[in-house]
Structures are given as structure tokens and as C-alpha cells.
């Protein structure tokens, strides 16, 4: 009697365990906390486009472990209030998320991901923001100083005649820190850094700012402002007789469609640095470029458009190599597996180049300096930090 009761209990226990296990979902859902409306909606659009492009490619090739992946755009509208509630919803049952975008939303929403042990890849912000949330995010970039000082020094080395440089700096998030890194690189060459000219976030007239900068009699100028403002400042400079166009350097965050649309012919000859090389000739990149142009009236992919494309492939690799099943009952453990894997990915095949991560920081990503000619970027040199 006792034996049969024991067998019955064991069977009931086994049944309850098996019965309680929720099945793994039929597709991999990856929410993307993004700014799809509001002031940076145009950026949010191409970030999302990149992620969805990767998902399409993956699904066309059979999905992740045979299951399709779906990117679900979650609009935070550049609003920390909305971003925090959306993240609070997602941490309940998401395996991994993309975003948030940009810094104010990252600061409001990422503590929720950290508290709940969920990886959320913030692929557009600087290391200085991302590292506060390690190991539950990774940085897409190495430290600002390590990366930018040698890069801008490489630009400066082209022009031995350049002795004094001024920077236009817009006080937004990591940008002043980037300007400091530029200054460090140029000072190392013996170039005198003149007083920075602050460009207010809501600036509408640029003449007085340009006059202020020119009064310092610089030989070179670095622009650390939003794309449209950089274009307007360059137009003002040209109208006031600036000739040495290659002595003007625009920083990466301004490499956006607004720079080319607003600057038009006036930005011919200026130099710009960035992390992707649109002139690369590989089948994967060419297909990406073509698809982007088809979806965006012939435009070239902007600098950040590949970040979430690569991030989706990185998630694919993490799922495939760690044996993650997506089962809700293993959510906590599998989130950790993904986070641990992504912190130290080796030889990741990005769309532009391969790179390694060490403790959440990329170690060997190249950067590039280009010259703008007729609205296109022509490679001047590749710089490795």
C-alpha cells in the first residue's frame, strides 16, 4: 500500500514538474526600446531599420535554432517617463532587449534592466554611460579618450601648418567629454587648443558663434555639435571667407543626413571621422547599402544604422552558442547566459569588420577619417587606437 502510494506521489510530482514547465515560444521576440517619435525619430527609424534588416536576413536563412526572430519596436518617444514604464513591462518576460535610445532614457530605464538581471544592448551610447550598467549591457565603443585622442591626432598630423584649433561644442550628454578627448589628442601634437565655443542646444543663429571662434584666429576647427548645427556653422564660416576646408573636422555623431542635406556643396572638402566605412566592398555590406537606399530614396546608410543590425546578429550568436532555449521557466538563468556570453564575444563577424569584446568593451574596432566630396565620404585613413 505504502509502495503504491509512493509511486503515485512520485508520478504526481513528476507530472506536476513536467506540466508546470511552460513551452519555449515559437519565435524569438526581441523588443527594441527606441525613440520612434519625437525629436530624434529620424534616427530611431534607421536604427530600427537596421535591426529589422538583420532579423529578415536571419529569418530568410532559417531563423535562430530554426525559429524566426521578431524585432518589436517599443516607442519611448525620447521620454524618460515612458521609457521607464516600458522597460518595467519588458523585464517581466523578455529574454533580451535592444536599446534604450538615447541617454536620458537609458539613464531612466537601464537601472530597471540591471535590477532584474536582463541584458539590454545600448549600442549607440558611449562607454562612459554603458559601463554604469555592466554586466547587463555592453558598450559599442571603447573609452572616449582611448578612441578619440589618437583618431583626432591622426587628423592633425596631416596638416603641419595647423598650430591653433578651436572646437564648437554643444553641451549634450557625452559630447563635452568627446571634445576633451579631441583636445588631448591635438595637444599631444603641440597644437594649441583655443577656448571652446559653446553652441546652445536650441541655437538658431550661428553668425555670432562663428565670429567668436574666428576672433581666436584658429587654423583648424572641430565640430562637436548636432549635424544640422555643424552644417550651419560651416556655411557661416565659408560666408566669412574660410578657405582651408580640410582643416575642418566634424565628429561622428554629426555624420547624419542633416549634415549633407543642410550643408550641400558648402561642406565639400571638410573631413569627418566615423566608425563605419561606407566604401567597403563586401557582398554583405553592398546588399545592406542597396536595401537601405531602396528603402530611403537612394540615401547612404548613416553611421549608426549598422549598430543594431550587428546587435541582432550578436544575440543570435549568443543564443546559438550558449544553448539558450527561450523557455520562460529558465528565463533568469538564460538571461545570465546571454549577458555573460556577450561580455566577452571573440571574433564577432560584424557587417563592417570582425571584433572582440573584453568585459563588455570592444577591443579592436577601427575608426576612419573621411573627406566629403560631392556629398560622399572618401576614405582618408583608417586609424586603430
Amino acid at each position, binding site marked *: 500500500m505504502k509502495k503504491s502510494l509512493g509511486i503515485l506521489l512520485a508520478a504526481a510530482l513528476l507530472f506536476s514538474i513536467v506540466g508546470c514547465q511552460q513551452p519555449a515560444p515559437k519565435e524569438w521576440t526581441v523588443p527594441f526600446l527606441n525613440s520612434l517619435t519625437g525629436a530624434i525619430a529620424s534616427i530611431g527609424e534607421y536604427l530600427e531599420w537596421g535591426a529589422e534588416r538583420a532579423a529578415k536576413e536571419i529569418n530568410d536563412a532559417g531563423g535562430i535554432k530554426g525559429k524566426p526572430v521578431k524585432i518589436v519596436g517599443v516607442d519611448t518617444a525620447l521620454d524618460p517617463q515612458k521609457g521607464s514604464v516600458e522597460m518595467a513591462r519588458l523585464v517581466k518576460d523578455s529574454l533580451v532587449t535592444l536599446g534604450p535610445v538615447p541617454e536620458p532614457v537609458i539613464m531612466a530605464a537601464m537601472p530597471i534592466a540591471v*535590477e532584474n538581471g536582463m541584458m539590454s544592448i545600448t549600442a549607440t551610447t558611449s562607454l562612459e554611460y554603458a559601463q554604469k550598467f555592466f554586466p547587463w549591457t555592453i558598450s559599442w565603443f571603447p573609452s572616449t579618450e582611448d578612441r578619440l585622442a589618437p583618431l583626432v591626432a591622426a587628423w592633425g598630423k596631416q596638416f603641419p601648418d595647423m598650430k591653433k584649433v578651436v572646437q564648437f561644442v554643444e553641451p549634450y550628454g557625452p559630447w563635452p567629454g568627446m571634445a576633451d578627448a579631441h583636445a588631448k589628442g591635438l595637444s599631444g601634437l603641440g597644437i594649441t587648443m583655443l577656448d571652446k565655443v559653446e553652441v546652445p542646444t536650441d541655437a538658431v543663429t550661428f553668425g555670432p558663434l562663428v565670429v567668436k571662434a574666428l576672433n581666436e584666429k584658429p587654423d583648424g576647427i572641430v565640430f562637436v555639435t548636432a549635424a544640422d548645427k555643424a552644417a550651419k556653422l560651416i556655411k557661416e564660416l565659408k560666408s566669412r571667407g574660410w578657405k582651408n576646408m580640410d582643416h575642418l573636422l566634424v565628429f561622428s555623431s554629426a555624420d547624419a543626413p542633416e549634415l549633407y542635406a543642410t550643408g550641400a556643396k558648402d561642406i565639400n572638402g571638410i573631413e569627418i571621422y566615423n566608425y563605419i566605412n561606407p566604401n567597403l566592398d563586401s557582398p554583405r555590406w553592398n546588399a545592406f547599402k542597396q536595401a537601405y537606399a531602396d528603402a530611403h530614396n537612394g540615401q547612404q546608410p548613416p553611421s549608426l544604422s549598422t549598430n543594431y543590425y550587428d546587435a541582432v546578429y550578436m544575440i543570435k550568436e549568443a543564443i546559438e552558442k550558449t544553448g539558450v532555449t527561450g523557455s520562460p521557466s529558465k528565463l533568469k538563468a538564460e538571461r545570465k547566459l546571454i549577458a555573460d556570453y556577450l561580455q566577452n564575444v571573440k571574433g564577432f563577424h560584424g557587417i563592417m569588420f570582425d571584433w572582440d569584446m573584453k568585459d563588455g568593451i570592444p577591443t579592436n574596432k577601427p575608426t576612419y577619417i573621411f573627406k566629403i566630396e560631392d556629398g560622399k565620404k572618401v576614405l582618408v585613413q583608417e586609424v586603430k587606437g
Partner: protein
Amino acid sequence: MPLPLYYFLAITAVNVLLAWSLYLPYRVAHLHFITVANMAISGYSAAFLVMTLHVPFGWALLVGFALGALVGFIVSLFIGDAPTFAVVIVGFTFIYITRTVIENLKAVGGTMGIFGLPNIGGNPVTHRWVIIAILYGLLLVVGFLIHRFEHSRLGRAASAVFVDKDLAASLGIDIKKLGMLVQTASCTIAGGCGVLYGFIYKSFHLDFFTFALVGIAMTIIFVGGYATLWGSVVLAPILYGVPLLFPAAIQSWRIVIYGAALILVLVLKPEGFITRRFVYSIESFLSGNRKKRNTP
């Protein structure tokens, strides 16, 4: 408590308090946008006290209130009886000045902001309950005080100033003192509110305190009803909560929906959803019920 519910309740409470901090000076026809700057000043100061000087949160919160009151009082010495337009200009200017000062203060993170504010009570669950308890306790206290204010001689005086300043002055109302009172009270609320706002997110960034916040509060007040404190109570959760229920496909139309709703309300119901007459009728209905219950 489920996390989304916590954030919904906490941010709704902040929005109601912020709306009240604008509503109060609006009782004397002042649009006092300095409250957003006050949130930033008190919030960053409290974060600095907690993170750098290791001051307990309770004291930092009190300093936040006090700082708000002090800034509000000092400014009110100059604009306590100023015209509406001048008060608006001062408010906007103050937001710019505050942002510029904070951007240049390395001690509070400059443009990067402040990260990693500690959990009150040592763990996230206690933190959330403490934040909710403080916010809703504050809502009750502030709501009660504004309610009492509205039913006092001061509230009636404020109504007179709202309608006609000259007439109010001829009735012996000290317009400047009344303006100073409501402005200081408004800034005190905003100061505490700013501290709590950052501690909800456990971080501070300058873009938490932008003109968008003014927009949110103004929409809450003017659609909810600018003539009574109840308009904000009703509209804050709706304005903030309903879009979260929108399906993803119409999420991106959120701003259009807001805009259309705002225009419709301003055209069809200029006083907002909750009017003073509506509140009086509810009050008289309830007091009628009480009288009936008390009748033997």
C-alpha cells in the same frame, strides 16, 4: 507590487504634484514655469548630498523642499505681483540658467548626469514602497492644503486677483503678498517633487527637466480643468496611462492624438473637463447625502 504598476503610480503622482505646483500660482494668473528649474535644483542638490556627502535620503529630501522654498521665496520678492507674461519669461529664463549651471558643474556630473542613486532602505522592494508612500502621502497633504486654501479667504482673494487685479487691490487684497505665498508654496512642492523624481529613476540627467515637462503639466492642467485641483488628479493618470495601452501600431500617433484632444477640449470645453461648477455639484450632492444620513 508589479514593476509597471509601480512606475505608473510613481510617475503619475509626480505629474499630479508638478501640475499642482503650476496650478497654485495660476490661481493668481501666474504661469510659474520656474517650478521645473526648481525640480532640477533640488533634485541635483539632494543627489549630491546623498552620493557625495552620504547624507541620509530623508534629510536630503527635506533639503530639497527647503531649497525649493528658498529659491521660490527669493524670486517671488521680485515677481510676486508681476504680470503673467513677465512671470512666464522669468520661468523660462530660470530653466535656461539652471541647465547651464548644472551642465558646467562637474560635481553633479555635468552633461553626463548622476548615476547609481542608492536604494532607500537598502533594497529595491523597500525603495519602491518608500517612494510610493512618500509620494502618495505628499499628494494627500498637498491636496488637503490646496483644498483648504481654495475654501479660505485667501482662495477667494486669489480668485478675485485672477479675474481683475485692480479690482482685487481696491478690495484691500495685498496682491504681492498673495503672489509670494502661492509662488513659494509652488516652488516648495516642486523642490520635493524633483528629488523624488530622480530617486524613482535612481539617476539624474538634465533632460529629465526640459520644457517637455512644462508641456505635460500644462496639458494636465488645461485639459483636466484649470479652475480646480481635481482636474489634475483626473487627467494625470489618463494622459500618462492611456498611451501605454495603445497598440504598437498607433503608438506613433500618440502626439497627434494628444494634440487633437487638446484642441477639442479647448474649443468645446475651455475650462477643461473638471470645472468648478462640476466640483460644487459633486460636493453639494455628497453633503446632501450626508445631511440625509444625519437626519433622524
